[in-house]
């Protein structure tokens, strides 16, 4: 079911958290609300769920205005960052909670809970209590509990933030495949750009209560509308006063076609090698290279080399490039 909101404004104790933002989330898509802490992304998610009242603006589900509909009637599955397990209930009772509220008959309830337990691969833990489960298991429990009411929309607040790195990577791929399998419209809040780019159909980048840019992840990465988006989505460096991704630059021999810089440091990070350079005025540029590229060029500290933009890169970062499709628009007024 499509979700849309327009002019959503919210302040807490005089501090503006959301500044009249609008967007449309298409049916069946996974949208990532991406932004630093304090950007208002979690507040927006709670407003869509009906858990936080808004000051002004409208929220619609499938074209129907739900701005004044209480959370219990919105039919939205919501997962908190801490998974909010009902501590006094077993895993099975946690998942059954929404079904009990809907007065689903006991036998049918059991059947549906069993099915959900299989779906989230927790069949063997049905009678355990939340404190007996690991973080990843609790996360899947929260997901099953939210899915039990067959929601039209799934909202996930920082779903992987509390997990360790390996579980996180595994679980987000699993959540993505589950979301695609169920075809459920999903909005996910995260501050992790890698996570967002890996699993989202569409990114919405928030900063200080405004949408900086929205669009498909590869497009937004390659064509950031603002300096903020460019630096938030990945590393940037500058060459001759223009911002580039460090992998968009290359080292060449000294010539008129390249800027001449001095190598300051060569940092080897496994596969990736970072070459840090300075110009005559002392400003720093860094270039991201692979091992093979470094072997060919073999830059040494103190050496002077030419740096230029790779021939395959058409447009530099942070130019506010034209959107590729009408949906991929920048909401940001003015440029930095």
């Amino acid at each position, binding site marked *: 079911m499509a979700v849309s909101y327009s002019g959503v404004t919210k302040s807490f104790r005089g501090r503006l958290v959301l500044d009249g933002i609008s967007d449309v989330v298409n049916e069946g898509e996974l949208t990532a609300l991406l932004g630093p802490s304090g950007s208002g992304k979690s507040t927006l998610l709670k407003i869509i769920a009906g858990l936080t009242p808004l000051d002004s603006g409208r929220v619609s589900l499938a074209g129907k205005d739900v701005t004044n509909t209480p959370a219990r009637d919105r039919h939205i*599955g919501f997962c908190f960052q801490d998974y*909010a397990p009902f501590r006094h209930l077993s895993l099975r009772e946690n998942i059954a909670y*929404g079904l009990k*509220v809907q007065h689903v008959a006991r036998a049918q309830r059991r059947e549906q809970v069993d099915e959900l337990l299989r779906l989230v691969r927790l069949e063997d833990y049905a009678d355990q209590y939340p404190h007996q489960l690991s973080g990843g298991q609790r996360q899947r429990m929260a997901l099953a509990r*939210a899915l039990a009411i067959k929601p039209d929309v799934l909202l996930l607040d920082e779903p992987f933030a509390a997990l360790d790195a390996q579980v996180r990577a595994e679980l987000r791929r699993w959540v993505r495949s589950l979301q695609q399998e169920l075809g459920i419209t999903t909005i996910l809040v995260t501050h992790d750009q890698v996570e967002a780019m890996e699993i989202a159909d569409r990114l919405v980048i928030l900063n200080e209560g405004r949408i900086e840019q929205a669009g498909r992840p590869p497009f937004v990465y390659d064509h950031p509308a603002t300096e903020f988006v460019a630096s938030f989505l990945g590393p940037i460096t500058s060459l001759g006063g223009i911002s580039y991704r460090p992998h968009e630059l290359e080292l060449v021999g000294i010539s008129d076609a390249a800027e001449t810089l001095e190598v300051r440091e060569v940092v080897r990070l496994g596969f990736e090698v970072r070459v840090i350079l300075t110009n005559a005025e002392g400003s720093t540029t860094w270039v991201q290279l692979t091992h093979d590229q470094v072997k060919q060029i073999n830059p040494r500290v103190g050496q002077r080399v030419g740096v230029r933009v790779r021939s395959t890169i058409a447009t530099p970062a942070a130019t506010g490039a034209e959107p590729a499709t009408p949906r991929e628009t920048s909401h940001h007024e003015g440029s930095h």
Partner: protein
Amino acid sequence: MRRSSLVLRILVIGYVGALLALPLGFVFQQAFSHGWAQLWAALHDHAMDLAIILTAKVAILAVPLNVLFGVGASLWIVRHPSKVSRVLDVVIDVPLALSPIIVGLVLELAYAQNGWFGSAFAAMGLRVMFSYPAIVLASVFVSLPLVSRQVIPLLREIGDHQEQTAATLGARPTRIFFTITLRSIAWAAAYGVTLTLARVIGEYGAVLIVSGNIALITQTLTLNIGANFESFNSYQGFVGALLLALVSVLVLTVIGVSRHRLERKRHGSFV
């Protein structure tokens, strides 16, 4: 064992012994000093039995009242913070800071026949002072913070995410309260109940003033014990004290168990 810790142990045990164990032991020794037959007769003392019944009647009303108020006030203070609720959060502790005598005097000022509220009740033909309602009032007053001080920190700690999740699953506020909130705070509230019960049964000063201490009518067990000592009927007084001590032991046991359960529940929890 190191010498310093041995000395410390002896000091602590000696201190607690002199303050608590010896006097308590003395109560038991005195109560049993005249043999079982005498004790049996003293337990059937008419005035004391009426005092026990009155104390039970007061507890039966005051404890539930305090639980309702305590849980309600805690929810208001934690879940719906406002300027008024923040004031309540502070005011709720006043009975702990005030001497019970002052509590009694204030209540008398308010509810006496010619007092602020008392005159209104008198106009309706109701007498509040020197009767059962006054004793309940004083008991509720002195035990005001005992439930909420247990419940408030727990409500803050568990946060509102479980309640909000239940709302997204379709639950109405009353259902959320009974299936989520109340279940989470049950042990803290139970601990508050035992504290309230101990306070209500043991209260002396405030009840002395508002009840008028009328034998056979408004005399609670503590007042009865006091009266017996004053009228040189100390054996009867010790028997009453024995009963109070036994209730205390029972209450302490319940507190110990519920505290243990509470602790286990907290440890079983996560972030």
